[in-house]
């Protein structure tokens, strides 16, 4: 399976995750693209779903899900993949994304992005899962690195797993630089070494967000200002990849909005260097 070529995909610039609570903010500050969660549409009332579609009309869209269960050893959620594909078509999404993790085993919903034990056996399973998802989606598919709060001793490293997965499936990477920072702080990873080791040539999109220290760990809350270390990592990735999009994730504590506007400007400036 050939590796993904980010240059063959549209350049989307600096965007934001669509959250209906700040729709007026979007109208004023005009992100270059939106990331829409199919879950927000599939489980909303028809009026709400239509409203989202109206709000994002005329702006490029990518879809971002949390429900595919991509890393499940028992198999990904293909029924959800088909629903996600349908929403992607309705939104004319440039690509689709989910997370490199699992969210439950048969009969055991976790409701949380849970880290994978990176083994050769699991690499084979996830490769099969991703290929099936790609076939269902019909658009390029990217996988995001998650924030992790524990690690499996003796497992292969995430960069090695990502190399195997991107070369085996041609999927792209949605690199969350804040998750890189969180994992460095929580698990003692070396962020620079991590970025040097992953297949940067497969990075299509980046996420950046604020995290908060809760109970001694950096939690990926998407509810705080973006830390300067995350911005630094984003610039580093832009300088050494062909990344097409940088997205600010903000899910709660939206105010003060002028600060959010400044963060969007900062993301725009970074992506100008990538054009």
């Amino acid at each position: 399976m050939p590796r993904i070529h980010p240059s063959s995909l549209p350049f989307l610039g600096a965007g934001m995750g669509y959250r209906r609570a700040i729709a007026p903010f979007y109208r004023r500050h005009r992100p270059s693209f939106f990331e829409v969660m199919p879950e927000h549409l599939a489980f909303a009332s028809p009026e709400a779903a239509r409203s989202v579609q109206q709000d994002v009309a005329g702006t490029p869209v990518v879809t971002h899900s949390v429900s595919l269960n991509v890393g499940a050893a028992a198999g990904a959620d293909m029924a959800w993949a088909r629903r996600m594909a349908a929403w992607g078509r309705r939104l004319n999404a440039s690509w689709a994304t989910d997370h490199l993790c699992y969210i439950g085993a048969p009969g055991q919903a976790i409701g949380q992005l849970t880290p994978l034990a990176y083994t050769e056996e699991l690499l084979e399973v996830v490769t099969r899962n991703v290929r099936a998802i790609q076939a269902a989606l019909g658009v390029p598919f990217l996988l995001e690195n998650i924030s992790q709060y524990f690690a499996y001793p003796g497992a292969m490293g995430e960069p090695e797993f990502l190399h195997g997965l991107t070369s085996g499936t041609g999927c792209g990477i949605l690199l969350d630089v804040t998750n890189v920072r969180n994992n460095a702080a929580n698990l003692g990873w070396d962020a620079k070494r991590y970025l040097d080791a992953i297949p940067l040539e497969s990075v299509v999109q980046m996420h950046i967000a604020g995290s908060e220290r809760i109970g001694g760990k950096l939690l990926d809350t998407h509810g705080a200002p973006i830390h300067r270390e995350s911005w630094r990592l984003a610039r580093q990735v832009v300088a050494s990849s062909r990344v097409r999009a940088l997205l600010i994730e903000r899910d709660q504590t939206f105010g003060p909005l002028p600060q959010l506007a400044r963060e969007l400007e900062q993301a725009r400036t970074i992506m100008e260097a990538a054009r």
Partner: protein
Amino acid sequence: MSQAQALQAAVAALCMDEGALDAWAADPAGFARRWGLAGPGLRMLSGLHAQDVAYVAAQRRIDRSSQLCGLLPETMARISAAQARSYFKAHPYPRADAVQEAARFAKWCQRAVLDCMAPDLARLESALATLGRGRARRGGRRPGLARAVVVLELRHDVSGYGRGARKGHALHRATCLALVRTPAGVERYRLTGADRELALRARDGQEAQAGARHSGKVTGAHAAARLRLAAAGILAPG
């Protein structure tokens, strides 16, 4: 079951089930073997940092509480952390569907020893969430008045308490009152113990058979229709 599947199932148990977490902490290797793990899988599971796993488990409980607060705010305001924890122990894994999870929690409230109002509130709030979901799934139009309809207050009607009710009869068996503001003014509804059934029937379009009684002479159908409006008003996003 493959080793990868066994490891994921065991880790899911550690993240969600306090009993499993305790068993693992007491004997990590024995716990791993009981989940069918051997070799590298066993070493991975037994080598996890206990504090890190406990942290994730604690965060999951916080997340589940927050989700229930979103759908059952009045109920959760009356539920202590210890009571919520009892629920999580009884049901370690959440339903993937948040509305179903709220319905299960409401059912648990009926059996648990709780604040006298919590069981009724849970039933009512869960029914409202179910109504909202049903409406969204059916693709029906929002009732025209929905935006203006708000449930102002949910409380027990204790006026009849002591008359005809056995002494010691739990207050949570009393009827529940809902004050609903509509464009026509504030209206008052008395919800019997069958309020959840009423709401579900309303969802299915069987309002005429619903058993709620308005405090005046309004029929069950009228009360159910108003409840539906209230549900739409409460749950309408944005």
